[in-house]
Structure formats: C-alpha cells, structure tokens
C-alpha cells in the first residue's frame, strides 16, 4: 500500500458491511413482514432491495433493515414498517421493489413519508 488514499478506499467499501454489526438503539429500524403471507405476496425482493440500497448508500450506521413475522394484515402484504426514534411508526402496504426504491429515496434518505403507500391512504373499510 503506497498511500493513505488506498486505505481509505478499502475502508469505505467495507465499513457499511461492518457497521451492520452494531446494536444501536438510535437506528431507524425498517422492518419487512416476512411471514408465509408476506413471502407469498413478494416480500423477499422488497427486503433485499431495501437492504441493498441502505448498504450501497452507506447508511448502515443509521438504518437497519430486518424482517419480522406476520403483522396480522395479510391482505396488505408485503408490509414495511419504519420505526424512527421519537416518531410515530409508518406502515407501508402492498410493497414491491419499485415502491421500495421510492420509499428509500424519499422517506429513509429524504425524510418525507411517502403518503400514497401508507396504510392511512388505503381503503380500510
């Protein structure tokens, strides 16, 4: 290694992976419903998409993406919930990879809830 720049390049490439291994209560937690109903409705691509975006954009020190079991609203799967410390939970329903992209861009990175995909906007009668 002939320069510090080379070291820095490796660090940047690796630190998102390593950062995932922390146990920080201040993280924004993004939870994808991955019960049988969620998986059947296509939750896996959503989970993988969100996880990849967070790592690619270098946000693993702020955001953790995990799965959870059945949330109980099987007809609205795939469901993604966003828990931000000090804020109310946001629940996105009927997600897919493209919608997940949008939620990542606007909500997780940009800080604006994407209202059109949230549970509140769905017809809950």
């Amino acid at each position: 290694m002939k320069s510090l720049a080379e070291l820095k390049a490796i660090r940047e490439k690796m630190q998102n992976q390593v950062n995932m291994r922390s146990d920080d209560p201040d993280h924004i937690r993004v939870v994808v419903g991955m019960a049988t109903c969620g998986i059947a409705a296509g939750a896996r691509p959503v989970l993988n998409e969100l996880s990849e975006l967070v790592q690619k954009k270098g946000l693993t020190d702020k955001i953790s993406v995990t799965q959870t079991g059945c949330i109980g609203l099987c007809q609205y799967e795939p469901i993604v919930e966003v828990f931000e410390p000090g804020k109310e939970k946001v629940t996105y329903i009927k997600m897919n990879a493209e919608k997940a992209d949008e939620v990542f861009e606007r909500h997780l990175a940009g800080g604006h809830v994407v209202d059109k995909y949230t549970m509140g906007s769905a017809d809950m009668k």
Partner: protein
Amino acid sequence: MFRSHVLICGGTGCTSSGSAKVREALISELKAQGLENEISVVETGCHGLCEQGPVMIVYPDATFYARVTPEDIPEIVSEHLLKGRPVTRLVYKEALDESGAVRSLNDTDFYKKQVRVALRNCGVINPESIDEYIGTGGYEALGKVLTEMTPDEVIQVVLDSGLRGRGGAGFPTGLKWKLCAPNKADIKYVCCNADEGDPGAFMDRSVLEGDPHAVLEAMAIAGYAIGSSQGYIYVRAEYPIAVQRLKIAIEQAREYGLLGKDIFGTGFDFDIDLRLGAGAFVCGEETALMTSIEGKRGEPRPRPPFPAVKGLFGKPSILNNVETYANIPQIILKGAEWFSSMGVGKSKGTKVFALGGKINNTGLVEIPMGTPLRTIIEEIGGGVPNGKKFKAVQTGGPSGGCIPASYIDIPVDYDHLAEIGCIIGSGGMIVMDEDNCMVDIAKFFLEFTVDESCGKCTACRLGTRRMLEILNKITEGNGTMEDLDKLEELAYYVKNNSLCGLGQTAPNPVISTLKFFRDEYIAHIKDKKCPAGVCKALLNYVIDPELCKGCTACARKCPVGAISGELKKPHTIDTAKCIKCGACMETCKFGAISKR
C-alpha cells in the same frame, strides 16, 4: 450484497464446544433454502461468553443465540433468517426481557458494564479478513503516525495515555519505548509476548484469534516510535488457532504493503515474524523469551543490561504483551486523553479479565480499571452457582494472590490490589466458593511453579520444592506449627533470592493465603481437619444412623466394599477401607452421608 450477517464464534472456547459443525450446518442449510446470496456467514473471534458456546449472533437485529447445535440450524434458518422470527428458546436467556422478547445485548448484565477497547473487534469482524479490519478503521493509526507524527510524538501520546503493561508487571508502556528509542544500533527489535501461560488466563489468545491485525498494526507503530524495522511475535504452540490466524494476518498485511518495505510510501520499513514457544512458562519472562527467540534454552538472564539497551540478539529491544498492543491503535486515533479518562489513579484504560472457577458466566470481560470486584463477580459474572457462598478470588495466576470475600468492594486496579499483596497480573480471575480449600489452592499453584521453574536459581528450583513438601505434609495431616513458620520463612527467601519474576512471585499464593486464611492452615495442623472438606487425608465419610434408611444404594455403589449393614437398618462405613471417593455421598437420596 448481504442483508444479514450471521456471526459464529471461532474462538478456542466455542470451537471446542462444536462451533465448526454448526457453521457447516448453517452454510449448507442456507444453500438448501436458497438464501446463500442474502445471508453472509462470518467466523469471528471470541465474544467473551464462552460458557454459553457455541455462540452465534444474527445482525442487523443483533439476536444472540447460545449453545447452538447443528440440529437447531434448520429452525433458525427457516424461522429467523427467512421469516424474521427469532427462535427464542435458543436465545441467550439474559438477552430476553420479562415478556420473552429479544432485547439488546448491551442491556444484558454480562455486557452492560463492559467497555471494549482491546476486545473491540473480537466477535465483530472476521479475523481472517484484513478488509473487515480496515472497515473498522484498521491501519488508520499506522497511517496517521507515519504521515503526521514524529516518533517522539508517538511516544509522548502513549506516555500521556497512562497505558501500563497488561502482561503482569504493569510497567508504563510509553516509558519502555522512551528508554529504548535513543539507543543507537544497526537494528532494533519490537517483540510481542504472546506466551500466555497463567492457568485460567486466555485474554491474549482471544485478541490474537479475534483481532490479529490490531497487534500487527501496533507493533508497526512501536517500530516507528523506537526506530525498529523488525518485529517478532513469540506465541505459544498450544494456541493453534491463534498461530494460524496470525500467519494469515501477516501474509495479508504483506500483500497489502502494510508490512514490508516503504509502508504508505513514507520510506518506513517494518516486517514481523512468528516464533513458536514450546510451552515453558518461564519463557513469558522477558529475558527468557528473548533467549528462546535466539534459539537457545529459555532461561532468564540478569538485568541490567535491560532489553531496551541490550535485548534480543544483544540489540536494543522492546517487549510488550498482546493486550497492551491491542490498545495502541485506539490510543493513537482517539488520543491520550480519551484513554486516560477511563480508569482510576495510576491505572488508566480498561483491562480484560478471564473469569473462571465457581462463577456463572465463565468467560472474558473487559472493564474500566478500578471497577469494584463486587461488580465483576455479582453483576457481570452472575454470581457463584448453586447458592454457594463466595469465598475468594485468585488473581494473577501462580504469581498472584487471593482476595478474600471481606475485600469484595475493592476497586480492581494495579495499586489497590498491590496494597493487599495481590496483583492484576495478566488478568486471570479464579473465583472460589466455600468448597475450596485455600491450602489446596496454594498447593496447586506451587505444584505449577515447581514444574515450571527453569532450574537456574537454587532458591527457586529447590525452595519451591521444599515449600511444596511442607504443604503436602500439612494437607496430609502431618504438619506442625513449626512447619508453618518454616514455610513463611522459605517463601520470603525464595522471593528475595530469585533472578526472575517466576521465582520472585512463586511464593505469592502461599504468602497471600497465609495472610488471609491462616486459620485454615491451623485447622489442618492442629485439628487435623480440612474445613472445606477437600483434603482427602483429613476427612472421613460417615453415615448418620438417624437418617439412614438402609436402602443399600451406597453399599452397592462403593467400589471397595467399605460399606456394610443389613437391609432396612443403618449402614456403616469402614474408614480403614474407604478411599474417600465420595460416590456414596452422591448416591444417597436421604442426605445421610456427610464428610467430616
């Protein structure tokens, strides 16, 4: 890119409880369920909670699984890794809250009070990947000293941090470097003492197995500070996993040019070689270690000349312990003030302890210096098992002493322990309860030093042997009060007349138990009794005729036929035949048999 990382401990503790099989099972199960591109399996170093091994942590949700078997793997994969439902029956019980939900590992008693500096990467990164080490800021400290600091500045930071040697003696690390730096020679050496030999101590092994690059980086920093271009790590051959990981780490560092010629283009050259020890305890002593690296029989030599002037191959050298080195990169990056803000008095920073013996959470803990012993035993260690009473802690291995229960609130640091004749030593802590005989403990450590004495000094070679003979006499019930005086006199004689640390400290376990548990020695001598019921020659197994139902279970179990009696009538033990194996006592369902 992986959405989840499963960390499996590959330290010696978990390896011996079967972590390799668990890892294989996991890898094949992930393939079977088509998850191999989503979940990454990482073999790490020690997490510290060896008692609960094999240990496995799932990130990003940080679920801590304990005592995992290959049979548990399909359930973990399909339930947790696929569906996100942690298998709570396998989660470390301390990591579950009252409602049974998984809580943060940092909230468990074992981890809550710990501050991880030397162990910061152990159990977090893959020790066989230099990239992961760099990902946590690895080799940045080396980059910083080479490009921004002069050697004198590096030494000053280490001095200011207050870091003292973690191997036992507690000599200020910065001062060691400062004494060596001005000495001129064609070559100087940086040595690492990884010949961890105290019974029950395994903190250095954990660092080497979990974060080997931290040691390499620190040695290169030390090399720059004192003007050396060659390092040696003297590691005991009994640590095969540590040796293997060091070899891999050295190779990777050379490949990246972080060891070798012209590091970071600054013109600084530094390389490291391994030397394996052959298992002699004395080779942990600095001059004996250097003699052994030179290829000679490992025996200590008189100081002065000190190694800083005339060390390895007669050249100026420094020798630091593994854990000491593991602190260095952090001190360089975060500053001397950060480090010295932890700890108390002249004991700065944190220290790793190996908790063992009669304690619930056997394992490795890293805590700020000055943490009260009570916190370590009761909170982090989870107390003494089976409701027994805490009696003492033996610290510092064969060179150390016992801290009795009455001192449980003592802050654990160099100076407070020295006041009561104990040492931190390398950090072994053996917890003892009411069933441990202190004379027997002293005998155990003395047997060790008798075996390990290199034989160079008469005081150590013969003195420790004579002391052991007296202890044997006492534990067999043949001791006299004069023996006790002779034992004490010999102890100080050996201490004062030995050349190296081994002999100078070998009598410590005896001196310290005589100081705090003299009544136990006297009970062995005068009453011919072992109060803890350990010394076989001094106890008899007896059957209480009131409680005995005459079930004959004990008589059938006795291997020497020492128990006789009629069915449904109280039995008796023939003490002449009895070999005191204790089998009858374990067999009796009525608690009728006791030791006296």
